[in-house]
């Protein structure tokens, strides 16, 4: 699943319009991922200029 490192994210929202399935949303001060929609394509991970988005194998709790 995707993990947003909130300490690194600068809230630019640049990842949001790249998401082909509309799974990202810039809320008041952080990016929210809708895990029901995310297909793990990795486009946002590759884009993020500050490396704040990571793909991890951890299971969502």
């Amino acid at each position, binding site marked *: 699943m995707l993990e947003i490192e909130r300490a690194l994210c*600068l*809230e*630019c*929202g*640049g*990842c*949001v*319009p*790249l*998401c*082909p399935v*509309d799974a990202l*949303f*810039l*809320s*008041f*001060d952080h990016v929210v991922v809708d895990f029901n929609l995310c297909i793990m394509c990795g*486009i946002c991970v*590759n*884009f*993020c*200029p*500050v*490396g704040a988005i990571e793909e991890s194998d951890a299971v969502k709790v």
Partner: protein
Amino acid sequence: MRSKYDVIVIGAGPAGSVAAHEAAVAGASVLLLEKHKRPGIPLCCAEAVSGPSIGKYLSIPQNWISTRVGRVKLVAPDGSAGVIKHPDAGYVLDRKIFDYELARRAVSAGCELECEAIGTGLAGEDGKYHSIDVLKPDGSGVKVEADIFIAADGVESKIAREAGIDNLIESKDIESLLQYRVEGINVEPDMVEFHIGNKIAPHGYIWVFPKSATSANVGLGIAATLEKGSNTSVRLDRFLEGRFGGSYKITEKYCGMVPRYQGVDKFRAGNLLVVGDAARAVDSLSGAGIVNAVMSGIFAGRAAAAFAAEKGMKEEELHRLYPGKFLEIKGEELERYARYRTAYNKLNDEDLNEIVSFVGDYFGDKTVTSLNILKIMANLIAKRPKLIRLARYLL
């Protein structure tokens, strides 16, 4: 906040605040929603703007300006440089003040500004939208109605998507941008620098925009098709080391994504007008967006007020007002810059050296008062036959 307005504008960046101001001045009741605690934060911009272009639509008081730009320097991959002397080229703005003051101006005109408020869930059908949910940080939400809506919610633009506008940014157009505020340096405060080359910024460029004689916005954009976005910091650090040696201090960090122009159908869906970055109204070559944001905001604000005042206005008439009037002025240019961008991505370092040497020869020591881009491109092709293969994009 009331339960109904004539116009609701989502996003208080330059496009949204100018749109709200125009609509309010024209007599409409306007609600302007801003996600953040105040307009102007966080910064996602290099802050430079063309003087002659913005001057037609806004008067810029001194306190909105960090530095006045009189020279534009292009640095080629081989290190050679060309300088264009243009006394009124533009400004490096202070966007924290610029955005805040534009929102305040809208409020002075009678618009209601609601900060820490997200507009989402545009409701309606067949292009006739009637309400939107306004969300607050405590999780509460309230439905607010309007006759017409303006999406000024920036590059992320969720509202346009809610109205069925497909504004997805395709992989080939993705550029990762990173910028530092650098202090403790010596720069010429009237000169902006563009450093080009596939080794330093593949398919992009590095900019040095002075904020004062000792500080600057230094940033770069790189194509995400070629490498990971997080490589921007490696490249930017390397550039700073070469340009300023060890003596600089990074005091702030910003990042972002600049959209490219995607055509007329991203500007309106029924009674939702889309402006600025949300409409992809951007100079696709340089990524400059402020002038297009302001202009599209003006025309959308006027169109919205007219629509709210004239019950039963026909769809064609609304379209003629917006985006029609805006694109009548800027459409050709937006398309042309999108072609320039396509050409730019085809250039190798030898080509870029040629372009910079052309700029050096063409402008020499002359001081110019305006730039005729079409004429410059025609001269470039004539004087540098190697670039003839790009003629169909440039002319």
